[in-house]
C-alpha cells in the first residue's frame, strides 16, 4: 500500500467514522483499547498502539474520527487500571468470547479450492452450531449474545453477563472443550435404567443413554449410523462398519444385524441400549463418533480461553477488507450476506491500478482486475481491492 493509497483509504475510513454511530461497549472506561493505523509501517509491520483507555464516549468517537484506524480493538477484560502495564492492570473480569474463523473451520488442503463465498458459508454453518450450543446447552438468552461479523472471514460472539465475567481461563477452556467435544467419553452417559424397579433387576436390563447435553448428540449419531447401514446393500454395509468401527468382519455383521432388527432398533431409538459385549459396544461407539463428531464445533479455542484478549470493536472497519465489523441479529443471521450487508462504502467510480490478479463479488456485482490493469470501479469495490493490497489508487 503506497502513501497515496494510504491517504485515500484513511480519508474514507475517517468519513465513515464521522457519519456512523459506533457501538460503545459496556464498562467503556474499564477497557483497554488498541489500534493499528495506516501509518508508514503499514502493512509490512502491524504496530498495535495499545494500553489506551477512554473515559467518555466522545473521547472514543473523536479518536476514531481523527485517526481512522485500520483496525480497532478493545479488551474483552475489564480492568481497574486499563492503561497500566499488563501486570498492574488489576483484572476484574472478562466477557466470554468465541471466534469462528475460516482458518479453524476449513482444512488447509480445502482452503485453496474454496472461493471466498464458499468459505463464508462454511463458517456460517459452524456459527449456527455454536449458537445452538450457547442457547440450548449453556442456556444463554439470545439477547445476551452479541453476534458480530468479523469483517473478514468469520464471526465473533460476545457474552457480557455478570455470570460469566469471573470465569478463569481453565473454566473457559472447559466451555470450549464442550462445544468442540474434546475429551468426550460416551460411557459417561450410559447408566443403569433407574426406572426399572429394583426388585426385578437381573443385571441384564437395558442401559440408558442419558439424552442430555452431548448424550443426545451421541444417541442421534448412533441412530443415524445404524439407519444408514440398514439402508445399504449388505456387502457395502459390512465394508462401512468394518472401516468406521475398526472391526473384523464377524463383528461388523453382528452390528448390521442389530441395525436390521426392528425391536432392538426401537429400543435404541428410545435411548435404551441393550447390554452388548464390550467389542460390539466399542464398535458402535466408534461408529456413533463418526457421526456425532460432525455436530462438534470448531472455534479458535485459545481466543475463548484467553481472559485478556483484544477483540475487534463491533461497528468498526476491518482494514484488510474495508468491510464493517457488523453486529447481527440471531433471528436474521440466516439471511446475512457479508458481501452485501457489511459493505459500507458508496458507488461513485474510483480509478485504481491493480498490482495483482483478483476478483470479488459485492452487492451482487462481480469485479475482476488483472495485474497492471487500470480499472474504474465503484468506491466499495475499490476500497476492497486497496485494503486487500491488490491495487493502488491511480
Amino acid at each position, binding site marked *: 500500500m503506497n502513501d497515496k493509497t494510504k491517504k485515500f483509504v484513511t480519508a474514507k475510513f475517517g468519513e465513515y467514522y464521522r457519519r456512523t454511530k459506533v457501538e460503545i461497549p459496556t464498562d467503556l472506561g474499564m477497557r483497554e483499547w488498541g489500534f493499528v493505523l495506516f501509518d508508514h509501517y503499514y502493512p509490512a509491520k502491524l504496530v498495535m498502539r495499545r494500553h489506551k483507555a477512554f473515559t467518555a464516549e466522545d473521547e472514543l468517537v473523536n479518536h476514531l474520527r481523527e485517526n481512522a484506524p485500520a483496525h480497532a480493538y478493545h479488551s474483552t477484560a475489564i480492568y481497574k487500571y486499563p492503561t497500566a502495564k499488563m501486570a498492574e492492570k488489576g483484572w476484574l473480569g472478562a466477557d466470554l468470547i468465541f471466534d469462528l474463523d475460516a482458518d479453524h473451520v476449513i482444512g488447509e488442503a480445502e482452503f485453496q479450492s474454496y472461493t471466498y463465498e464458499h468459505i463464508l458459508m462454511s463458517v456460517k454453518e459452524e456459527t449456527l452450531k455454536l449458537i445452538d450450543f450457547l442457547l440450548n446447552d*449453556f442456556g444463554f438468552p439470545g439477547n445476551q449474545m452479541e453476534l458480530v461479523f468479523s469483517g473478514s472471514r468469520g464471526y465473533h460472539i460476545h457474552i457480557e453477563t455478570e*455470570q460469566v465475567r469471573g470465569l*478463569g*481461563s481453565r473454566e473457559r477452556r472447559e466451555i470450549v472443550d464442550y462445544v468442540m467435544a474434546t*475429551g468426550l467419553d460416551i460411557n*459417561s*452417559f450410559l447408566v443403569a435404567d433407574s426406572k426399572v424397579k429394583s426388585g426385578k433387576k437381573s443385571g441384564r436390563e437395558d442401559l440408558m443413554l442419558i439424552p*442430555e*447435553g*452431548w448424550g443426545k448428540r451421541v444417541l442421534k449419531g448412533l441412530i443415524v449410523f445404524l439407519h444408514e447401514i440398514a439402508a445399504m446393500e449388505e456387502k457395502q454395509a459390512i465394508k462401512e462398519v468394518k472401516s468406521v468401527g475398526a472391526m473384523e468382519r464377524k463383528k461388523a455383521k453382528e452390528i448390521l444385524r442389530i441395525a436390521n432388527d426392528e425391536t432392538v432398533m426401537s429400543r435404541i431409538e428410545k435411548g435404551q441400549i441393550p447390554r452388548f459385549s464390550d467389542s460390539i459396544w466399542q464398535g458402535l461407539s466408534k461408529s456413533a463418533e463418526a457421526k456425532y463428531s460432525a455436530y462438534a464445533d470448531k472455534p479458535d479455542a485459545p481466543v475463548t480461553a484467553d481472559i485478556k484478549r483484544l477483540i475487534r470493536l463491533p461497528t468498526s472497519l476491518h482494514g484488510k477488507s474495508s468491510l464493517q465489523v457488523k453486529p447481527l441479529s440471531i433471528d436474521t443471521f440466516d439471511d446475512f450476506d457479508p458481501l452485501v450487508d457489511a459493505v459500507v462504502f458508496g458507488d461513485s467510480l474510483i480509478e485504481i491500478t491493480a498490482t495483482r490478479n483478483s476478483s470479488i463479488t459485492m452487492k451482487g456485482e462481480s469485479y475482476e482486475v488483472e495485474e497492471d490493469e487500470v480499472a474504474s470501479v465503484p468506491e466499495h469495490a475499490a476500497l476492497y481491492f486497496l485494503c486487500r493490497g491488490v491495487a493502488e489508487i491511480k
Partner: protein
Amino acid sequence: MIKWRAESTHLCFYPFLSSASKYVEESGATLENLISSATFERARLRGKARILEAIKDGVIIKPAVITNAQAEMELLSYPFARILVSCIHDAHLVRRYVLSEAKAAHELLLADSSRDGDIIYEMAEEFSIHVDFFREHVQMPFVDYLRFTANLHDKKWKLVNRGLEKGRVKLEKGEFIRIIQEAIYERIMKDLPLNVPIAVCGAIKGYTDDIKRELEETRKKFGDAECFIVKDPNFFPPCITHILSNLKEGINVTHGARFAVTAFLLNLGLTEDEIIEIYKNSPDFEEEQTRYQVRHIAGDMGSVRYTAPSCGTMRTYGNCIGSDDICEKISHPLNYYRLKLKTKPKKSQAKAHA
C-alpha cells in the same frame, strides 16, 4: 433454618461454616486466651492432633462429642490448628492439612445427609450455590460447577461429559456432596497461611515443634514422593525434557510449549526465580515480562492456578514429542513424573547393582 443447627454440638463438626466462626467470636475466647490460658489446653491439644492426624492418616477423625463443653473445645481447636499450620511455613503441610479437613467433612456429610437431607441445603446456601433439588438428583448452574470442579481431573467431571441443559448441570446427590468438599477445601484454604505475629508463633513453639518432628519422621519413612520435593529432571516426561533442552540451547520455543513447561515446573514446586533462570537463554528474554508470565501461570494475579496441560492438550498443540512406553500408561505429564518417581530403584538396591 432449624434451631439446633446453631448449636455447638453441630457446628463443631463443621467448624469452617460462617455460623461456626460467628459462634467462636461470640464465645468471648480471645486469641491470647486461646494460645495461653489453661482453660483452653484441651482445645490446643486437639488442634495439634488435627494436624498430626492429617500428616499420619490424611484425614481428621471426628471425636465423640456429648457435652457443650466438649463441643466448644472441638470447635476452638480448629482456629488453633489454623494458627499452628500457619506458624510452620510449609506449603505442602498446609495443603495436606486442608485436604484432610475437607475429606473429613465430606465423610461426615455423606453420613449426616443420609439421616437428614436438609444438611445439603444448608451447605448449598453456605457456599452460595444455586441448586435445584430433585428426588434423585440435583441441578446447578454450569458456572458454579466449573468453579468447584477445577481440581477434579477424572474425565467424568469434564463438562462435556455431563448432562448440560439450559445452563444447568445434572448431578447425582453423591456427586454434589463431592463438589461441596471442593467448596469446603476452598473455604479452609482461604487466607492460609495466616499472617500470625512472631510473638504468637513463639508462644506456641512447643506445639509446632512436635508437629515438625512428626512431619520429618513421616517424610523420612515414606520419602518425599508425594510431596514433590524431589525435582529430578531424569524423571521428567520426554515432552518436557524436549522443551527444556530447546530453551537451554536458545532455540525459540512457542508460547504453548513455554506455558506447558512453566506450569509443569510450578506444579512440581519450583520457585518463580528457578523458573525464570531457565528462560535466560531465550533469544527474546526479558526478565520482567517472564516474571509476569510465570506469576500469571502460578495464579498469583487473580487468575486460576494453572495445572500443566494434559497429554491430550500437548498433542493438540503439537507439543507431545518423544512419547515412550510410560506415556502409554498416563494421560498427564505430571503422572509420568509420579509414576517414574514411584518406580525408581531405592538407593540400597542401586548400590547392590553397582
